[in-house]
Every structure is written in structure tokens, then in C-alpha cells.
């Protein structure tokens, strides 16, 4: 983090990455690889052909769906903010960039001015800085929670679905128990036990979230398990591990990806709610939910100017709302695009 703090070298680095990506794409598009890798590449290309056709068809459906375009744009916008955070809001201490800088300790929020683009909250935390770095917090929380829940769900779900019988029965009864609770309520109990912090919130969310993935993956695996190609793979002597990872999972993963996309937003909603309630990030940590928590005593302005402190609640709230909206639009569009039942030609 301390390495590249000045904006110019950061932009240069980003441009270099972009150029590298472009040249790789260029390389792939030419037939030079055929020369380099010979028959192997030709075979690979042939095997990819139907997949590419499917992908092209999917992309055309994306283009036809206005909602999915909006979703992609919103997410791209947030990715850009998260990547460019050190440029957009320079941290005072590069080693601790998530601490929101304070400008005094006065309890009364101050409206946007030239020093604080979006104003300050109670306790004079800079709102602009908080929402910019809060984007990174949001991505970190959602990626870690969804990633971990997905991984646990993948292992448990595929084992339960593939082997069936008593293993399946036990795993599914365990998930039943977790699914009897609304996420936020069970997570709240775990956070109380772990002690309020952002790490506790993430741990608690992983604990309450994995069963829904296990359930979904199990159901998908169950339906794929009986397919002929799985039988064939088993018949030629493929090990269980190979059959699951090479044949069963790739064919049951799409609904899981749709759910993961929807959950990226849902996780942030719950995590923000926890921080808002005072069970999440420590005071002064760049986190959207906490920023809204700061505004609770300043909802209604002084008589005659009821909206005096609007910026303390509206700005961080819009960030949460659009972040979640982006993922929901994306997930919803994916569902329509990938669902073979709705996939009309």
C-alpha cells in the first residue's frame, strides 16, 4: 500500500495493466498459438467452439436486457471506485487507510464545503472519505463471505448430493436447522458471542450463509448425477473426485453463480445493518452502515430547516442502495439468461 501513493504512478500502473490485458487478448485472437502449441491448441479450440457459441448467445441476451446493462454499469462504477480509492481520497496514514480522518470533535455535522466534499458526520468524520473507502470494505466483506460460504456449500453440497443416503440425510438436517433463522437474527447472536467487530460480522455471516449454498448445490448435483455423461465418466473408471469436479460441478454451477451474484448485495445489506445497529465495524472505520448509524441523531434538522442534515443519511445510503441494486440487477439478468427454461431461441 505504501508503495504507490501518488496518483500519477497509480494511473500509470493501471494503464500498464490495461495494455498488458489488451496484448494478451490480441495474442489469443491470432493463430500464432496454433504454431506455438500445434495440435493441442487446435483440439482445444475445437472443444471450445460450442462453448463460445453459447457465450455469444448469452452476450446477445445481455445486450437485449436493459436491466442487466444497468447492473453491469453500476458494478463497474463501484469496482472503479474501489480500485481508485487511494487516488480519489488520499489516506492520511497509508498504513491504516480505513480510518476516516476527523476534522475536530464537534458533535454537529457540517454541510458539504471545499474541505469536505460531502460534509462531515457527527464527530466530524469526513463523509466523502468514508463512502469511498467504504466501497472497499463492502467488496471485501461480500467477497469474503460469499466466497467462503460458496466454498463450504460446494464441498458439503456436492458430497451430500453425490453420495446420498445417510450422509445426505445428516447434512441436510443440519442445514434445516440453520435455515430456520433469518440471517440477521442468527448472525446477531453469533456476533454477540464473538464480540462486536467487522471480523465477527464476517465470521457470523459465513456461519449462517453456507447452508443455503449447500442446499442449492445438492439439489443441482442430484439432478445431474443421473445424467448419461456422469455414468459414462464413472464407467471409464474416473475417480469420485474427478467425476465430481470435472463432470458434475461444471454442469450444476450456473444457478449457484446467480445466487452468488444476488448474495453479494444481500451480504452487504446485512453487514451494513449490523454496523448500523452498532454490532459491526469500530467507530471511525470506513463502513457505510456505520456512517448511517452516525446520522441517527441528526435525522430532523432545527425548526424551519428540517432537511438541514440530509447529507449524513442520504449519501451513504445511496452508496449501499446502488451497490446492492447493481448486484441484484446482475443476478436477476443472469437468472433469465442462463435459465434453460426461459432461454428461448
Amino acid at each position: 500500500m505504501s508503495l504507490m501513493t501518488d496518483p500519477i504512478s497509480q494511473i500509470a500502473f493501471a494503464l500498464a495493466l490495461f495494455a498488458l490485458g489488451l496484448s494478451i487478448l490480441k495474442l489469443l485472437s491470432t493463430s500464432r498459438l496454433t504454431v506455438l502449441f500445434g495440435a493441442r491448441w487446435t483440439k482445444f479450440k475445437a472443444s471450445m467452439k460450442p462453448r463460445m457459441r453459447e457465450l455469444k448467445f448469452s452476450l446477445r441476451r445481455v445486450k437485449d436486457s436493459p436491466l442487466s446493462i444497468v447492473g453491469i454499469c453500476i458494478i463497474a462504477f463501484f469496482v472503479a471506485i474501489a480500485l481508485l480509492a487511494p487516488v480519489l481520497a488520499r489516506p492520511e496514514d497509508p498504513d491504516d487507510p480505513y480510518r476516516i480522518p476527523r476534522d475536530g470533535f464537534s458533535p454537529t455535522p457540517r454541510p458539504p464545503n471545499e474541505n469536505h466534499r460531502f460534509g462531515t458526520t457527527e464527530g466530524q468524520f469526513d463523509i466523502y472519505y468514508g463512502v469511498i473507502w467504504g466501497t472497499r470494505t463492502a467488496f471485501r466483506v461480500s467477497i469474503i463471505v460469499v466466497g467462503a460460504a460458496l466454498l463450504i456449500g460446494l464441498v458439503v453440497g456436492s458430497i451430500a448430493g453425490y453420495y446420498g443416503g445417510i450422509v445426505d440425510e445428516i447434512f441436510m438436517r443440519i442445514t434445516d436447522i440453520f435455515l430456520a433463522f433469518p440471517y440477521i437474527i442468527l448472525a446477531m447472536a453469533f456476533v454477540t458471542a464473538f464480540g462486536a467487530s467487522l471480523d465477527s460480522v464476517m465470521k457470523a455471516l459465513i456461519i449462517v450463509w453456507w447452508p443455503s449454498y449447500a442446499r442449492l448445490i445438492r439439489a443441482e448435483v442430484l439432478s445431474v448425477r443421473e445424467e448419461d455423461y456422469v455414468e459414462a465418466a464413472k464407467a471409464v473408471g474416473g475417480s469420485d473426485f474427478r467425476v465430481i469436479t470435472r463432470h458434475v460441478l461444471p454442469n450444476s454451477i450456473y444457478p449457484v453463480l446467480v445466487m452468488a451474484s444476488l448474495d453479494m448485495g444481500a451480504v452487504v445489506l446485512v453487514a451494513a445493518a449490523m454496523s448500523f445497529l452498532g454490532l459491526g465495524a469500530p467507530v471511525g472505520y470506513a463502513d457505510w452502515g456505520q456512517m448511517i448509524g452516525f446520522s441517527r441523531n441528526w435525522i430532523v434538522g432545527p425548526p424551519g430547516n428540517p432537511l438541514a442534515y440530509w447529507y449524513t443519511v442520504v449519501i451513504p445510503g445511496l452508496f449501499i442502495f446502488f451497490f446492492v441494486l447493481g448486484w441484484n440487477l446482475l443476478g436477476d439478468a443472469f437468472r433469465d439468461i442462463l435459465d434453460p427454461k426461459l432461454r428461448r431461441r
Partner: protein
Amino acid sequence: MRSYIIRRLLLLIPVLLGIILLIFALLQLFDPYQRAALYVRDPKQMRDVEGIIEKYHLNDPVYVQFYYWISEVLHGNLGWSKSINMRVSDALFYFLPATLELFIFAVPLTILIGMRLGRISAVHRDKPVDHVTRGLAIAGYSLPTFWLGLMLLMVFYGFFSGLFPPERLGVAADAYVNSAAFTRYTRINTLDAILNGELWILIDALRHLVLPVITLTVVNIAFVMRIMRSSMLEALGKGYVVTAKAKGLDEKTVINKHAGRNALIPVITVAGYLVAGLMAGAVITETVFNYKGLGWWSVNAAIQLDIPAVLGFVLFIGTVVVITNLVVDLLYAYVDPRIRLG
């Protein structure tokens, strides 16, 4: 039908047992001094924490602890909630009516509006109306509950101060409700007001309910709408709908009588999830509006590390959701014979 009911009731046992085990596992994350409050019926007992630890074997192996804990739970003792100075079991029944009152208004609104929107969306599939309703639904789904609540507060408290106040009742109404002149039959304020024939209490209670109910409804509508839309789309593609159209029935009759009715069945199944969703929403809504119900109590308890209250609340919610799901499944089987016979 009877054998189906028995089978479902038997399946309930392992899940309820699992919930109890989960709560017990959660309990083990705390140290014995924190846990002692779970065994207490009276705060005076807390003066002798060592004695409680001794008496309920809090330092003994897990299975010994489980025995002492479960026998307390089965005797209805969930401990002492220090955040409101009440027994947890009493507090549950003290706060339940407030949350129920929210649900009485929010559930029908959510279901009616959600189904209406889902149906419109399905009938006009891929038309602008469909895109707009779906867009709105996704937007409602993406709204942070607490933010929506705060925004409503900002607008209504700021511009119409006093029209929709926070908490459950105004000062005057609260004093009157707690006086001898008013009988609290159910502790559900609106219902009690009707039973007592006090119109002004009813109006006061309703005014306090408007904003929390709107908040709860908006964030849960999308869920019902989504199910209704896909279920309606499926029904519209069925053979009997095509037949009805082919024999020349007008569009309205086909949609209302043929597709609409059959599309209702899957919606019943979401009721269980809806209760869970509303409960999660109530936790936040009640906190934002300072509406003293179960959710408000649980959040306060979590912040003040009132462990018996948090665990008691979680146990209660888990049980309620499981039983709701059971009732829903039975209803579903009753409505749709294919389920119980299949």
C-alpha cells in the same frame, strides 16, 4: 392426509432438537460467568454467581451442562434479561403483541400488493409495464431497511411533525392505556382500543403504525411479487389456459379464473419465508422507529450483551419459523392433493 400430517410432525422433532443444540452450542461460546444469567429467575440470585456455576454445573463436561440447561429450558426458565429487568420468558410475551400488531398490518399489505404486481408483470411479460414493475421490485429489494426507515423519518418528522410519531403510543394515550379505565385484553393496541370502544386510542395507535408498516411492506413486496410472477407465467403456459383462450373466452376471464387461481398455490409456500423475512425486517424497523417490540428488545439486548435475552429470542424465532413452515406445508397439502399423495 392423516398419515401425511403424522409424517410431517415426526420430521419436526429432529429440527427442533437441532435448534436447541445450536442454541446450546452458541451458549458454549460464552464463559461461565456470562452464562450464569441464563439460569436465574431473579436478579438477587446474581449476587452469588459462584453458587449458580456450582449449582448448574457450568464448569462440568458439556453433556452434564446440557442436562441442567435443557431441564431449565423445559421448565420454562430462559434466564433473566438485564436490559429490561424481566424474565426472558415473560419478556417474550410482553413484547410479542407489539410485533404481532406490525405483522397484522404488514402481512396482508405485502401479500396483496405483491401478488397484484406479480400478476400484472406476468400478464404483460417483456412489455414496458413488466420492466417497470420488475425494476421497482428489485429496487425495493435492494433498499436497506434501516435507510428506508430513516428517510421516511426525515421526511415525515421534518415536514409533518407529529403526524406519524415514533414508539407505540403517544404520552397521553400511553398513560390512559395503562390506567385502570382501560382493559388490556391482548396488548395489541389497536385491537384493545376497539374492544374498549376508545376511538382516539385506535387512531393514536394507527398513526404510530403507519411508518413502520410501510417500511416493512416495501422491503418484502419484491419477494412475493417474484414468486407470483413466475408462478403466473407457468400457469399462463398451461394447456387449460390455451384451451380457454381457444374456445373464445375473453382475456380477463382467462387471466382471473383460469390462470390466476392456479397461480395462487405456489404463493402459499412462500408464507413461511415471508414470516422469516418480516421478522428480520422487524428487528431493524422496530429499532429505527423506537417501536418497542421483540426486535427492538433483541437489538438492545445484543448491544448490552444481555445474553439470555439474545439466546431466548433466537430460540423463540427458530421455533416460530419451523412451526410456520409446518403449517404452510400442511395447508399446501390440503389445497393441492398432488403433494400429499405424491
